[in-house]
């Protein structure tokens, strides 16, 4: 229970609320916060998608990007966009793991803006580097 004197929680601290907010964005189909080891911290995906498989693959993809980006002299990995014929996936790194968002193909800039804001909220709540603008 929160007493009236408690300071308001930082937005990125509440994973489920952050994800709920993000998935309310127009053209967003769902989202996932997955720890580096593939553990699902919070998920809001369409029921047709098997969360465990996607989280395991997303964590592996995130780690590949995190590990190789500096080795290839591209600097620390921040985020990635993968656009398919029928959907867009955004994946960003945070100190606690990876944020994944699924959206309509050709999603408007608002989706990317909301994604970056969510990454920034996670960085401000948990530490780490916020995404570039």
């Amino acid at each position, binding site marked *: 229970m929160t007493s009236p004197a408690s300071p308001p929680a930082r937005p990125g601290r509440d*994973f489920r609320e952050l994800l709920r907010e993000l998935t309310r964005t127009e053209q967003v189909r769902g989202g996932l916060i997955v720890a580096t080891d593939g553990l699902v911290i919070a998920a809001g995906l369409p029921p047709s998608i098997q969360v465990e498989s996607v989280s395991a693959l997303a964590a*592996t993809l995130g780690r590949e*990007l995190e590990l190789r980006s500096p080795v290839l*002299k591209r600097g620390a990995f921040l985020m990635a966009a993968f*656009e398919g014929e029928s959907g867009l996936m955004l994946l960003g790194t945070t100190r606690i793991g990876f944020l994944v968002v*699924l959206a309509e193909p050709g999603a408007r800039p608002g989706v990317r803006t909301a994604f970056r804001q969510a990454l920034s909220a996670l960085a401000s709540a948990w530490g780490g580097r916020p995404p570039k603008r």
Partner: protein
Amino acid sequence: LVPALALRYRDGEAIAMKLARLWSAVAGERRAPTSSEIFARARRARDRGRFEAAAALVASGLEHDPDSIVGRLLSGSLHVIFREMEPAKADFERVLALDRHQPRALLGLARLALEEGDAAGSVALLRRALERYPDFPEAEALLDVIAARAAAPPAPPPVATAHPELDLRVPPISHELLFLARDGALLFAHPRSVPHEASAAHMLHVMELAEAIGIRCGHGALRRIVLDGATETVHARRDDGRTLSMTVRADLDADLAAGHLDRLWEAAVAEAPTTTP
């Protein structure tokens, strides 16, 4: 006596429980939590993203019960979350010494082997996990992606010798331009003075994983990719298994980079064959 008094009040039961707990504490009856209870608390903390608290609990539980499989698995998981891969590996190996078929430890080690570039080792560990536990979606999904790569024949020779005729007009904004065939061979690479095998292999691996996720999410074939690093960004296009990627400065206008990439893509797909000879 104390709980009985509390029952007179409206929220009697809840108050009674609280008072009973307080009474036990005052009377010194409170027992120390068992390691199982500590690990259960740690798991709850980890599942809610309270990783530091979870790690502290796991450390305290392992002091009392260093060979707890649950404790070692939690410890390994938390080390991975904190990107401490060597201690994570030690924890997962210790679990396997206690139970050689423990699926989470096998999955943990398989992911670490993959990070170290040992695809064959990773495949062997995932197969071991799936032999005993066939209903293990995480292991199955990873095995699907990695097994194909582990079984793939060695990459054909780079394009410098295979396709000298392919001459794309590389814009000055490009730090690296790669054109990959369906079989993963380099059809074109610029600048020619530096090796590109590492970035080509990385690009292929990223696309394999992204496509595997895309298939599971109904996204269809991968078409465009943007990888943002702190100092460089990679813009890529993909179709029919062929991939063109261009690395540029991270602060370069994304539309400008995409325009150059589209022009190069048209030229590349028109000139190059789909596979290496």
